[in-house]
C-alpha cells in the first residue's frame, strides 16, 4: 500500500489530485451556471424555488453535492500544500524578472486567484447554502407543495450594488483561474496530443469565458429585478 501514498504525495501525484478535482469542479460550475439561468426570468420566482427544492432534495444531487464539497476541500488543501512547497523551492526572488515574457499572468497567479475564489465560496455558501439549510427562510406554497422561498433571499442579497460587484470580481478571478487551469489539468494528467490539445485549449477558453459570463448575468439580472428596473 506504501506505493499509493508515495505516488499521491509525489509532485506528479499531487498535481494529479489537483487536476482531477479541478476538472470535476469545472463540470460542477457548468451545471450550476446553466441551472441557475432560471434567475434571468423576471417572473421566475416559482421556477427558481422549485428548481432549488429539487436540487436540495433529489438524492443523486445530494450525493453529487457531497462529492463537490470534498472536491473543493481536496483542491484547496492540495493547492495550499503545492503553493507552499513551490515557494520553498525558490526562497530568494530575483531582483529583476521578465517572467511576463515567457508565461501568462494567470498561470503565475493560480494561488492568488484560488484565494480570491476561496473567500468567494465562503461568502457565497454563507449567503445562500447556509441560509437554505439552517437559516429561517420563509416558505411559499405552490399547488399545495410547501417549498422554501430562496428566490426572495437571492433578490434581497443582490439588491445591493456592492454585493453584485463582489460577485463580478470573484467571477473574473474564476475566469482567469480556468483560462490557465482547464488546459493545464490535461497536461498534468499527461494528456497532450497533436489533434486534441488544440481542441482542449479552445474548449478551455470557451469555459473560462462562458461560465463566468453566464454566472455574471444572474446577479446583474437579480439586481435589475430586485430594484424594479426590469
Amino acid at each position, binding site marked *: 500500500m506504501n506505493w499509493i501514498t508515495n505516488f499521491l504525495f*509525489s509532485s506528479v501525484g499531487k*498535481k494529479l489530485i489537483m487536476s482531477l478535482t479541478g476538472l470535476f469542479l469545472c463540470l460542477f460550475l457548468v451545471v450550476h451556471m446553466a441551472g441557475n439561468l432560471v434567475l434571468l426570468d423576471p417572473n421566475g420566482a416559482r421556477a427558481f424555488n422549485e428548481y432549488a427544492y429539487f436540487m436540495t432534495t433529489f438524492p443523486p444531487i445530494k450525493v453529487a453535492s457531497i462529492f463537490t464539497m470534498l472536491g473543493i476541500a481536496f483542491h484547496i488543501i492540495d493547492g495550499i500544500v503545492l503553493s507552499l*512547497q*513551490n515557494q520553498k*523551492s*525558490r526562497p530568494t526572488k530575483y531582483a529583476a524578472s521578465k517572467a511576463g515574457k*515567457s508565461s501568462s499572468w494567470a498561470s503565475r497567479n*493560480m494561488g492568488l486567484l484560488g484565494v480570491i475564489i476561496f473567500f468567494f465560496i465562503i461568502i457565497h455558501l454563507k449567503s445562500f447554502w447556509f441560509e437554505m439549510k439552517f437559516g429561517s427562510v420563509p416558505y411559499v406554497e405552490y399547488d399545495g407543495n410547501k417549498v422554501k422561498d430562496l428566490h426572495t433571499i437571492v433578490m434581497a442579497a443582490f439588491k445591493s450594488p456592492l454585493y453584485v460587484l463582489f460577485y463580478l470580481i470573484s467571477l473574473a478571478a474564476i475566469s482567469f483561474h480556468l483560462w490557465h487551469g482547464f488546459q493545464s489539468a490535461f497536461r498534468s494528467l499527461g494528456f497532450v496530443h497533436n489533434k486534441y490539445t488544440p481542441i482542449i485549449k479552445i474548449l478551455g477558453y470557451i469555459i473560462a469565458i462562458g461560465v463566468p459570463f453566464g454566472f455574471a448575468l444572474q446577479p446583474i439580472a437579480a439586481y435589475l429585478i430586485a430594484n424594479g428596473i426590469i
Partner: protein
Amino acid sequence: MKLTLNIWRQASTNASGSMQAYKLDGVDEDMSFLEMMDMLNEQIIRDGGEPVEFDHDCREGICGMCSLYINGQPHGPSNLTTTCQLHMRSFQDGDTIDIEPWRASAFPVVKDLVVDRSAFDRIIQAGGYISVNTGNAVDANAVPVEKKTADEAFDAAACIGCGACVAACKNASAALFVSAKVSHLALLPQGDAERKSRVLKMLDQMDEEGFGSCTNTGACEAECPKGISITNIARMNREYMSASIFGEK
C-alpha cells in the same frame, strides 16, 4: 559601448549577498557576453578587487555549463541561445544590465554567480542511464526506430542540463530537465528495459532535491536554449503515473 552592470556578489554559500554596480567602458558589440565578463574581471583585478565568479566551459553552446540570469531572463534576451553564445550586440550603449545567479533552493549559490547544480547529476545517477553493455558501435539502423520517434527522442536529448528551466520556473521546478531525460530514453528501444523503474527513481530524486512541482506555465520551454518542449513534461507525468499504477513495485 559603455555599460553599467548590476551583479550579484556573494562570498560563499552561507554569506549574505547583494547586487553591486560596476561601470565598464570600451565593450565591443562583437564580444560574447562571457568575454565582456572577462573584461570586467580584468578591470576588477587591476583595481585590486575580487573577480566575479561565473560558470563556463565550452563557450560554444553545447556543454551547458554557463548560466546567468540576465535582465530578468535565463541566458539573457535572445531566444534559443546560451549565455556564451549571447553577444553584446543584443544590448545598447549606455544600458544597465542586471546579472544574477539561478535562484532555487536545490541550486545553492557557491560564490557570486556560480550555483551548485549537482542536484541534476544526482537525478541522472538515480536512473538516467541504460544498464546494457554497449560493446562496439552497432551499424546504423540495426535497431529500427520510426523516424518521428527518433526525432522526438533526439529533440529531448538536445537538453544540455544547464538549469535554465529551473531558473525560469516560478516554482524552480526541474520538470523540463527530468522529462527531457526520461523522454529521450523512454522513446528508444534501448531505454525500454528500465523504462518504469527509471522514471520512478528519477522523479523521486527530483522531489527529494527540493525542486518545485510543475504548474504548466510554459516559462521553461520559452527560456530553454535548446527549445525542449513541455510536451515532454506531459509524457513524464504519463510515464510516472503508469509506472506507479501498473508497475510491479
